[in-house]
């Protein structure tokens, strides 16, 4: 009896394996490697939703080169080690033909090494650390800007608009956070300002009161934080609780309404500045797609539309080359302009966008953010 059951099971498994095989021929497999669990899952959710909607829309319009897009999920939890094993699984087990991801720069940098070696096209919708595209890896692209551009906007805003003389720089000791803080630091120096304090805090901790007291003693005009929304929320709350009224500025790592939750209320997030690409939800090219998201009860904030754009770029390249070879796709993307939900996009030799548009946003007293008038 036992043996009989085992045999049935193995036959079943075998046939399942077969059916998967026959499927592989007429689908375009695209891996999405993002943090779906862990403390930065809010961003993974944005990206996966974006990619999923794009795949659905493209499939509904007949697919790419006659093939339907099949998405394969990978959860890197924003941890470099896990990101590499997701990348290896995508390449060796799932045999993906292109990849969207990852999110945290510290995950994207090691994971893209795997894709580059396998000759697979990978587009990150949200990793802004300059190093991502500075390693001469021909099949690695990004659909967002770079921290050296973002840091410049933040530094210029602090000096020219906020008239800040004393600036404190805090970062979370991670690739992204420290990278962007360094970029702000360099740009501040160009404008003739040396920071009063440059220090790191530990991700995952809750109490930054010691650091806050130190900042309070310096009485700065502006505090810049390089890091993600969890620590940013706690830091701004503790600053305000200790009575520090300096302007608080951060990068695109806080572009999620979860920032307000992490701060413990709108009264703390209110007035916080952040740099991010010009609001793509307002572009005429994305109107129909944004409507679709909102109808499904999902606000396409942050990196949602960037992931949508990445998917459109992959689809356009596959359509244009009739191939899934990473090198061919890469050449095509670097030579052509893709019309996307975020407008026309073109890439340079490194795989960076030719045009980026960082602007300053501010959080209001309703827990939402809007562009600051220039």
């Amino acid at each position, binding site marked *: 009896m036992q043996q009989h059951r085992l045999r049935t099971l193995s036959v079943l498994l075998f046939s399942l394996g077969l059916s998967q095989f026959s499927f592989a021929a007429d689908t375009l497999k695209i891996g999405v490697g993002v943090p779906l669990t862990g403390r930065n899952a809010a961003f993974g959710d944005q990206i996966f939703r974006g990619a999923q909607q794009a795949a659905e829309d493209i499939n509904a319009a007949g697919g790419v080169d006659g093939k339907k897009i099949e998405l394969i999920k990978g959860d890197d939890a924003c941890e470099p080690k896990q990101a590499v094993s997701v990348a290896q699984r995508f390449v060796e087990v799932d045999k993906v033909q292109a990849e969207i991801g990852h999110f945290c720069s510290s995950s994207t940098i090691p994971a893209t090494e795997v894709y580059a070696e396998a000759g697979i096209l990978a587009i990150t919708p949200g990793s802004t650390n300059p190093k991502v595209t500075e390693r001469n890896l021909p099949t690695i692209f990004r659909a967002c800007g770079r921290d050296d551009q973002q840091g410049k906007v933040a530094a210029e805003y602090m000096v020219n608009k906020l008239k800040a003389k004393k600036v404190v720089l805090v970062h979370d000791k991670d690739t992204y956070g420290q990278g962007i803080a360094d970029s702000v630091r360099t740009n501040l120096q160009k404008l003739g300002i040396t920071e009063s304090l440059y220090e790191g805090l*530990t991700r995952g901790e*809750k109490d930054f009161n010691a*650091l806050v007291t130190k900042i309070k003693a310096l009485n700065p005009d502006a505090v810049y934080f390089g890091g993600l929304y969890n620590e940013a929320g706690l830091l701004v709350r503790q600053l305000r609780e200790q*009575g520090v009224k300096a302007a608080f500025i951060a990068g695109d790592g806080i572009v999620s309404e979860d920032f307000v939750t992490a701060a413990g209320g709108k009264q703390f997030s209110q007035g916080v500045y952040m740099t991010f690409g010009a609001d793509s939800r307002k572009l005429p090219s994305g109107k129909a797609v944004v409507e679709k998201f909102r109808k499904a009860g999902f606000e396409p904030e942050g990196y949602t539309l960037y992931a949508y754009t990445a998917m459109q770029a992959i689809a356009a390249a596959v359509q244009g080359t009739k191939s899934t070879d990473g090198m061919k796709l890469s050449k095509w993307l670097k030579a052509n302009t893709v019309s996307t939900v975020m407008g026309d996009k073109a890439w340079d030799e490194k795989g960076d966008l030719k045009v980026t548009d960082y602007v300053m946003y501010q959080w209001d007293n309703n827990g939402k953010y809007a562009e600051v008038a220039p």
Partner: protein
Amino acid sequence: MTAYILAQQLVNGVVLGAIYGLIAVGYTMVYGIMGMINFAHSEIYMLSAYLSTIVLAVLVYWGIQSPLVLILLTLGVAMSMTALYGWVIERLAYRPLRDAPRLAPLISAIGISLILQSYAVLTQGAKTKGIPTFIEGVTRFGDAVNNVQISNIQVLILIIALCSMVALNFIIQHTAFGQACRATQQDRGMAEILGINTDKVISLVFVIGSAMAAVAGLLVTMNYGSFDFNIGFVMGVKAFTAAVLGGIGSLTGAMLGGIILGVSESLFAGLVNSDYKDVFAFSLLVIFLIFRPSGLLGKPEVEKV
């Protein structure tokens, strides 16, 4: 560097240390009685943050406004729920392994902590959760520029931590249950022969430790405003360190260890550099343990013959 800043850093450190201490108590009690490290303890603390938030939401929905009533009721419900968790965990994961080699319950503790974490993610999601501030106000000493401040919630943390320590010490030193606890700690076999139901004693220790974690969970959530399923990890490491520093097995030691750890972290971050505050705190621990392996108030291990 003014005296005010130094004093403010001391306040920061003592409050942080009191929180470490409240959780360290759970580690130290279980270790004292069973000689095992209950790795699941920090996850009970994590669960209590979720439980408190749910209870708070329900109470506010019922129209209860007074902060004091809210806190007391929430504390009561959260403590009894985590106490139940503690009891069940001991029953399921540790009691069947009572006579197994020492490593077995350690591994099952790690297993339980993973289960609890995944349980929180599956039922509550991975996103950060927050609660609104309902105790506001700070007391400032000094003028507008140079001052030391302590918020009402920080005062509450200190009061509750102090009360809990006094109550626990009283229970252990002056009640029949406390006597049974101490007897079980000294020699479980002998205590059993003398008619003490050691299984019951151990269960109760888990219940008390878990209830203390609930106290910490509520206070931390109110103080920092937000939490997620991962808060147990860092807090667990720190609280365990506090317990070892104070002398594992000693209640007062756990609180003392917590405060020493909190103050040294805070002073180092404030006066030197916050990048290396953990490096400093743990170096301190290592050096301290080289010279005093049993911790501040711990008794040197006596080999049982």
